[in-house]
């Protein structure tokens, strides 16, 4: 699967998440409700799969892809938060003295997401390098050459 497709997929996933928050199906970002945790597990699984899928490109490149996913995610959440403020639906779910304060939780989400998604993507790549059949074959071929 092409790298771009994954990023587009994540735009769709985060747009769906914020859409569901606006629709009242999911709770705002700050809530640790069962539904939100389930959704987070789903996102984590897709990030791990992305790491698995791109394991051939090496751990470092996969880590960068994980960070890009975090960036894409927080961009969607930022736009959704502005829309939420405009139509009166909370996305972040934290009290802010003014809308300008939105940048603080958004930066917090960004930093946390970069760390988390980078680690998850690396985890996917690491697991793939040990258990993915194509990677095992590649390793065997490399060691046979040596």
């Amino acid at each position: 699967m092409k790298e771009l497709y994954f990023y587009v997929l994540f735009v769709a996933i985060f747009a769906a998440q914020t859409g569901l928050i606006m629709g009242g199906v999911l709770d705002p970002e700050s809530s640790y409700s069962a539904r939100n945790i389930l959704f987070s597990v789903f996102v984590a699984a897709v990030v791990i799969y992305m790491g698995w899928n791109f394991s051939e490109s090496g751990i470092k490149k996969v880590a960068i892809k994980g960070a890009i996913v975090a960036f894409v995610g927080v961009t969607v959440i930022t736009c959704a938060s502005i829309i939420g403020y405009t139509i009166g639906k909370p996305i972040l779910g934290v009290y802010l003295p003014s809308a300008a304060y939105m940048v603080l939780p958004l930066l917090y989400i960004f930093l946390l997401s970069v760390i988390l998604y980078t680690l998850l993507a690396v985890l996917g790549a690491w697991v793939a390098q040990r258990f993915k059949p194509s990677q095992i074959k590649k390793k065997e071929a490399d060691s046979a050459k040596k």
Partner: protein
Amino acid sequence: MTVEKSDGKILKIFLVIVALVFVGALAYILFFSGSLHTPSFFADNLEPSADVKQLDSQIQSTGPENTSETRFAVLHDFDEFIKAKFKDLTTPQDYQEVYMLLKTRIDRAIKEINETSVPPGELKLWYIYNMGIIAKTSDATIGFDLAGSYVYPSLANLGGYVDMLLISHIHGDHFDKNVIMKAKEHGATIIIPDGKVRVDHFGLTPFIVKDPNGMDMLDAIKQLGIDTSGLTAIKPNETINVKGVSVTAFSGEHRSPDESTVKSLYDTPVDWYYVNLSGFGLLHTGDGFLFDNVPDFSAKRVDVLIIHYSDELTCEALYKMIPNAKVMLPFHLHELGHGREMVLDGGMFKNALDQYDHGYLKLTYVQPNPTLMRYVPMIWGESLDLGNATQ
């Protein structure tokens, strides 16, 4: 190879677009978000808990005119409710029940204000939140410092029921852009204090502070991203007459909690407003306390003196300044935006009740004790018939 190159190019374009959107959104939030509404954390159909219902019914059973021990107990119970249920305004869980109580009481008040027709010669008051109060006569309905939509967003609708909105100063717990928006839609006259000012920042929070070499108040408010059309800035000691209501502004000093650098941020123009509404005199002090030249209110009829309760010394000073006031209303209590610590420290009825003696103002070093001035602590959404209160 060509396909891979083209894919790489598309990917780069995609990432550049995402980066531009992100930077653009952050810039919008930082520089152009002044007019955005505060969204509500809570669903519209949320039901009040048993505790909320019980306290609300207790409050309903004793009005502010009631001077019995039962009323005293209700005020005490209200304090205890806030103490137990209010953690912070950060997440919904921190204040859901307090929100529900405020919602229940404000929704009822809005209905009453809308449906009540006050007979000529009478005045009815509704306490809203913090320093916010609505006064209604047969001629007009006016509001002072209506704010609090950051706790209960629909409180902003009150702006749609007033003919005149008076704002003592430009701090969030007195100046609420959501209320102002509704008041504008309703065609209300909106009055703010005038003065030369500049905009300072404390973190991301802008503060309008006094500055003799600064800009006009309306220009400063524009800098906050707020539309100033329909706002009337009045100068100290200026009197204006609008729709049969006479308003005089007296410029005071904003009280400062300490002498730190934050002091300068609080040093904003703040007005006392003396209003003649259908013959009734109302004096609202906002957060203003000190004066360079103390105004003379001795010749003015002051039926209601609305104060920012701070301590006994404040009450005593105000009593001596306006001894002819018939009723003193101690407000600026339970203002949740100040945070739990400040509310519990000095913003509770238990503090204001030190000066309460069966409905009269009690001051340690003033005779008679209690004084002859009525002293009426009020709970969110309660109403007071001035005719009864001043008898």
